[in-house]
């Protein structure tokens, strides 16, 4: 990762000189971990994308023989799994890491080492679940792995990698969620009360709760599947009287909140981009926050809309149909508030802004198709067809991915101190926008014209040829789009036009410090008195009817410390809202930084080995399996113990 070049790192208190590798392996700096997440996720995006391209090639014409049935099943399973768990969630995590502490005026997350741990678990788990496809051993049960196809009727290692891999990734997401939620609750700068948090932080907060409450359910469902596959329990064994719907319910109780886990961070990013680039405050801030909460809450009561065809009976169908439709209301509020944020503004069509606007335009299409299958009877004609595939690509690609691209272009100057090239960005945007509609819009038609999903081939003369051809052409149009993006991304890190601390004239704290931010983020924590602290300084005129209030400064003073700079003068930790221009090292400022450590990595590795021992057992090598198990356990326990018993900072 060449990012070090652009992000000069300030060695903490007692750190020896380290090789670049070690520096990244041992970092506990939320900004570097953010970078790790971003680059890893982009790598997996290419993987998932290539999987998609292979599928699209096979489906380009009827009765194609390019991809075998077995491989195709692995392709869509891994494509879905990759895009959901290894691309969008980590891309969001990259922004959580990078932005949350900066936006709330903190020097790091609540538990820096836990943060590093989350990343390493994600990386190792990601490789664990992805690599088998090279041997055509990849999971092949679909991304929601319905039983009993994936238990009683699944022979071979394939699904073992899935059940264990998702289990591992769950650990990562949960650890990160506790970390960020704590950070947001407890580490906001003085005066930054909840209703002054930037909207991205708000949506992130909601997402952490979704993770905290949804992931335990899938964890249990996965444990059942794990036990069934490895220890012969009967949870999903239909032959023993098990109900084939148990898995479906448990999965979707997790699965639907999961889709909001995927979209809300993007909503948050867009809520930062739109106001900034139309030079206007976010329209209806409180409603935006509450609608986010409402979407998340309702999200727990709609899961069975994925199961309308299983015959749940009229009562359940009615209830889940109606609750699902309700979600349109808070989401609509967001859409209209965004539009009215731009209303009356002066819009700069930066690349970030283009992507943000595209999100509104495209997500609405996906949302509306969502409503059409929220109606159980009409869903009977839609479920498991390409119409569904169209729906979720409009919300996922047209929603989540568009929003994340907006975020990348918007925050790149903050992360790397340089702009991404706007001209290339514009080309990327239009290619991407056209490719997306070309690929996914025809799927509405092929679906409603009877094409089932997850088919590796289809017969000629079914009336699907045209649409599949268009879809495939569109899919390949993504390749130039992405290549341009990657070129722009990596080139701009070194050669982009330098950007100041606040290139977009944005209103929130992260823009009040140098770009890229020094490792301590804020030499002095700013005291926040309004929702747009930076505009208080730069654009007082915009702040006329924004509520202001001073926090209880005595309390703040009594609760904050001071640090002694190298030159010996005492610096209070807090200072009134200000813009920091000069960058010193943490040493010079006397701000104690957490010491880099390898322990989180070892713990993560321990978990991987522990889980990895099970497929070995499945293959019949008992001895090897138990040695691995024991080894992993020892590694896990010992490194965890030494982690917990060493203080965060050397000088404590």
């Amino acid at each position, binding site marked *: 990762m060449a990012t070090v070049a652009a992000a000069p790192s300030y060695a903490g208190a007692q750190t020896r000189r380290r090789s670049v590798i070690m520096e990244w392996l041992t970092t506990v700096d939320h900004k570097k971990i953010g970078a790790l997440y971003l680059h890893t996720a982009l790598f997996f995006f290419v993987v998932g994308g290539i999987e998609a391209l292979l599928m699209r090639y096979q489906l380009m014409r009827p009765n194609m023989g390019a991809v075998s049935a077995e491989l195709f099943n692995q392709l869509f399973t891994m494509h879905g799994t990759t895009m959901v768990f290894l691309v969008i969630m980590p891309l969001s995590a990259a922004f959580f890491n990078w932005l949350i502490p900066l936006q709330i005026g903190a020097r790091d997350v609540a538990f820096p080492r836990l943060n590093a741990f989350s990343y390493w678990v994600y990386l190792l788990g990601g490789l664990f679940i992805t690599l088998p496809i090279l041997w055509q051993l990849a999971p092949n049960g679909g991304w929601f792995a319905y039983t009993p196809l994936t238990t009683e009727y699944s022979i071979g290692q394939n699904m073992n990698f899935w059940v264990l891999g998702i289990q591992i990734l769950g650990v990562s997401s949960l650890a990160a969620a506790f970390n960020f939620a704590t950070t947001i609750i407890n580490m906001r700068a003085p005066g930054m009360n909840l209703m002054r948090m930037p909207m991205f932080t708000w949506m992130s907060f909601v997402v952490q709760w979704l993770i905290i409450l949804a992931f335990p359910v899938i964890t249990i469902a996965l444990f059942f599947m794990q036990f069934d596959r490895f220890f012969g329990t009967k949870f999903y064994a239909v032959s023993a009287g098990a109900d084939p719907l148990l898995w479906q319910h448990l999965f979707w109780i997790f699965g639907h909140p999961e889709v909001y886990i995927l979209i809300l961070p993007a909503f948050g990013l867009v809520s930062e981009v739109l106001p900034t680039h139309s030079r206007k405050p976010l329209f209806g801030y409180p409603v935006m926050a509450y609608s986010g909460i409402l979407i998340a809450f309702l999200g727990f009561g709609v899961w069975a809309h994925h199961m309308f065809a299983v015959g749940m009976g009229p009562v359940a169908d009615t209830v889940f149909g109606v609750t699902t439709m309700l979600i349109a209301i808070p989401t609509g509020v967001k859409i209209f508030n965004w539009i009215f944020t731009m209303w009356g503004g002066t*819009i700069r069509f930066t690349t970030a802004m283009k992507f943000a606007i595209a999100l509104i335009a495209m997500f609405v299409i996906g949302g509306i198709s969502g409503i059409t299958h929220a*109606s159980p009877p009409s869903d009977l004609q839609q479920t498991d067809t390409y119409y569904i595939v169209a729906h979720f690509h409009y919300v996922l690609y047209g929603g989540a991915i568009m929003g994340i691209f907006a975020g990348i272009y918007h925050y790149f100057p903050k992360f790397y101190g340089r702009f991404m090239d706007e001209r290339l960005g514009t080309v990327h945007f239009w290619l991407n926008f056209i490719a997306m509609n070309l690929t996914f819009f025809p799927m509405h038609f092929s679906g409603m014209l009877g094409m089932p999903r997850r088919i590796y081939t289809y017969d000629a003369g079914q009336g699907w040829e045209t649409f599949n051809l268009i879809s495939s052409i569109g899919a390949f149009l993504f390749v130039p789009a992405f290549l341009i993006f990657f070129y722009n991304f990596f080139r701009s890190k070194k050669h982009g036009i330098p950007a100041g601390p606040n290139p977009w004239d944005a209103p929130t704290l992260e823009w009040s410090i140098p770009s890229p931010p020094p490792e301590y983020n804020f030499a002095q924590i700013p005291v926040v008195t309004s929702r747009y602290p930076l505009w208080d300084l730069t654009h007082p005129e915009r702040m006329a*009817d924004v509520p202001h209030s001073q926090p209880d400064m005595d309390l703040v003073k009594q609760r904050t410390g001071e640090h002694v700079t190298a030159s010996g003068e005492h610096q209070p930790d807090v200072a009134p809202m200000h813009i920091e221009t000069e960058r010193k090292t943490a040493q010079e400022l006397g701000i104690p930084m957490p010491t880099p450590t390898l322990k989180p990595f070892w713990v993560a590795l321990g978990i991987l080995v522990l889980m990895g021992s099970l497929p070995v057992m499945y293959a019949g090598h008992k001895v090897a399996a138990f040695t691995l198990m024991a080894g992993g356990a020892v590694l896990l326990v010992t490194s965890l113990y030494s982690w917990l018993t060493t203080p965060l900072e050397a000088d404590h």
Partner: protein
Amino acid sequence: MTCTARRRVAAALVPFVFLAVLAGCSGHYPNSTFTNFTEFNRDLRALWNTMMHWATVVFVVVEVLLIYVIVRYRHRSGAEPKHVHGNTALEITWTLAPAVILVFIAVPTVRTIWRYETPPPADAVQVDVIGHQWWWEFRYPQYGITTANELYLPAGRTVTFSIRTQDVIHSFWIPQLAGKRDATWQKKTNRLWFTLDSAGIAAFNGSCNEFCGASHANMRFRVYTVAPADFESWAQHQRGPAAFGVAPPAGTAAGSGGSATVALATNPAPLPVQGYVFPRESLPDHVIPKTPLPESIRFDDALLASGDPQRGLETYSRSACIGCHRIQGNPMSLGTIGPDLTHIASRHTIAAGLYPNEPRFMARWIKNARAMKPGVLMNTLGKGEFDPVTKAVIEAGGLTDQQIADIVAYLMSLK
């Protein structure tokens, strides 16, 4: 900037452009869900129209608003925006408006739900649907018929399907007749029913829609809606054994075949030679499979001409076939793992709608089914063929092309 705005307008119209284009190239769509062959589908279509009506309203309102805003308020030098932070009246409006729209969608939705979750009329034709990896078994309990992969339905009648599965979850779907239902349980059944229009004499495609393993894509079936009289004729014929082979000429069965002949001699009297079958010539193009034959299977088609049904019967009755397939009138052939072959010759497709039911396809299927349909249970049987599942070449006990030709002749005589 202006040009950006204009290009954006163009771009936001992309979906509409598509609609236009596709409306233009209006090919015919044999599996379209927007058809009028049952009143179930008519109701669903009405529901769909209501939703599309509102969907268009929402879509147009949002996109037009959006385009207006980005064109009207694109950056102009020196223009400092007015800084409104919200407007309660507005926000209440666009909270209530969607709510109202949703009521208009929810009410017909709920009505439709309760209409089709009620028990069907008593006089309905009953069909038991059983999903297998990867083919469909159909039973008509009222007629005592068991068949596979091809449904005959009487036009104008109400039909009830009791859907279950033999193994994993499948999903039973005839896009042009009704919504889909999953074959979820092995013991409990899932119900679906609809009333056919009397007019609709036609042939439809059906498919499995729940991912069910290797050949999920190849788990198709055919539906023929026929005149009630024809249905009765078909049913009467299908319920008994086929004419051929019920009373074989004496003495042909030598050696180990003997036992077979003895048994065969004691069979019920033959039924009318041929009942109604959906006429091959009037099959619409979309129900005729076009799956290419894998080159890997070499078979000398010349032999098919010389295939002898009687020898075929003998070979069949001595081969593995009988372990998996049932043929009424052939007391050796009692298997239930595979489709019932009693009237295999009266079907237009084999292997769950994957291939036309013609000798050359049938022969290759028997020779190496697994090379023709990924993962099927029916193992490779031809001599010298490679079984892609067991990764072994069949030598001992493998069927020669001549034997296969005979078996084909036999099966083809089971009208």
